[in-house]
């Protein structure tokens, strides 16, 4: 019983973080599907989402409004980033573009530091801070918000890909880019859409996590790397894989923190990444593409 008593608690915090990782991972996957590049600025979209929502909340203390405005602004940033930093590249080989995204990440982080300074800012939890007791474990309402809204966003994304013409066109591009162009699907438009979607998901993740961790200009790097790991673990480009990878990673981290030491938290994440790369490089859900 001694071991199992805290297990539920670890699972709850693991699934909460995992949900955040999953949203970030989906952003990596969506951009990869449209462009075959890894967008290392994805973590900065998470940070921007959190910081923008905090600023909007200060201007007008309404959380739903701050959430929507934060996601909206960052979506625009994602699209503009692609337009200004990636589209004009004359020799768009994947490696060039990936390096540009790394540079973009550094730039965005620097700009955020100038804009918001180095302080960490709070965002109030969406519905108070009164814990709910589940046996020996406690759940904060914000944990439920994170998991619930992540589930809602994932379902909305799935519906977008299955039911809308734009979503189907994006999938078509990922499956067979040349054929998609022969159907009249504009590759450039799909890339733009993918950057917008990924930025929106990242921003959503940042706004959800901000009440639990505070928002600070350099929060993007680690969250981005975790989301990237989750995407690889689950299988880059697979929606189900991204979600699964995020949850597995979050729970593994949380168990390591609880049963071993919080110092090993990040080590476990990257150990898991290496294990997957050694044993199943296509990821848990990745097909042999």
């Amino acid at each position: 019983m001694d071991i199992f008593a805290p297990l539920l608690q670890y699972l709850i915090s693991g699934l909460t973080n995992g949900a955040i990782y999953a949203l970030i991972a989906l952003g990596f996957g969506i951009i990869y599907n449209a462009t075959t590049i890894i967008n290392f600025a994805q973590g900065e979209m998470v940070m921007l989402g959190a910081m923008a929502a905090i600023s909007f909340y200060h201007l007008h203390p309404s959380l739903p409004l701050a959430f929507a405005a934060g996601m909206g602004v960052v979506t625009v940033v994602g699209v503009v980033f692609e337009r200004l930093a990636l589209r004009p590249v004359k020799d768009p080989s994947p490696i060039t573009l990936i390096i540009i995204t790394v540079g973009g990440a550094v730039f965005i982080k620097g700009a955020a530091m100038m804009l918001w300074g180095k302080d960490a800012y709070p965002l109030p939890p969406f519905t108070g801070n009164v814990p709910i007791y589940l046996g020996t474990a406690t759940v904060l309402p914000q944990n439920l918000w994170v998991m619930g809204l992540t589930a809602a966003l994932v379902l909305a994304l799935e519906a977008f890909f299955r039911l809308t013409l734009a979503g189907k066109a994006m999938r078509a591009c990922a499956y067979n880019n040349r054929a998609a162009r022969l159907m009249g699907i504009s590759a450039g438009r799909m890339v733009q859409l993918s950057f917008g979607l990924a930025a929106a998901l990242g921003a959503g993740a940042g706004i959800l996590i901000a009440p639990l961790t505070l928002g600070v200009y350099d929060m993007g790097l680690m969250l981005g790397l975790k989301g990237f790991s989750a995407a690889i673990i689950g299988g880059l480009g697979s929606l189900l894989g991204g979600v699964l990878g995020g949850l597995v990673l979050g729970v593994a981290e949380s168990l390591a923190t609880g049963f071993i030491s919080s110092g090993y938290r990040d080590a476990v994440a990257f150990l898991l990444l290496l294990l997957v790369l050694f044993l199943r490089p296509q990821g848990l859900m990745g097909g042999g593409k």
Partner: protein
Amino acid sequence: MLKIRNLHAFYGSVLALSGVTCHVREGEVVALIGANGAGKSTLLNAICGLVRTQGEVKFQGKNVAGLAPEDIVALGISQVPEGRQLFAPMTVAENLELGAYLRFRRGHKKEIAQDLEHAYGLFPRLKERLSQKAGTLSGGEQQMLAIARALMARPRLLLLDEPSLGLAPIVVEDILSTLARLRDEGLTVLLVEQNARAALKIADRAYVLETGRIILSGAAQDLLQDRQVTRAYLGKDYKEFTEGR
């Protein structure tokens, strides 16, 4: 309808087409025959805007060289690419829907529904398999779907790249008779085929392409009788050829 003058195309720095001049008149079926690597697919891709070119490609009087593929599709040129290139993990219905992508964006829903019925009329088997994944269809069904998908854009000019590739002779017959039917309905077709005999049988005119140049052109019936073509592309025995059968 389609006029190509002095077209050069490159893959990287490799010259794949050098000075191709040809044309397709409205309502014609024109065959493009030639060996592997002669530049047939390159020519189709050049028309569709998928490869960089120099020279003139005029479609209905408008120069389309240098336009993006989506703009060329919008003008009424569709391609059925070599090897079908279906969206394999997507259903038959989704593949057809994406074929009409540009028209959906313009809101032509009613016409699209009519065209779907037309496609089912041409290929009844597709209708039975609407919810099946395209990748699980047989080779012949995949080719039918590729053609139906291209038709969903309601093209004025249909480009077909090796539609008989890897199919059983009986299925090839099927596909070719469908092409004949489409021609009778007024569609203009540019057909690339390695199966030169089959292509020449349904074509009005043909061009023979060799190492990026057009070396011969004429009425399909004449080319079927032409000695050079017979020897090189129709698989006549060399002895038969030299002794004049």
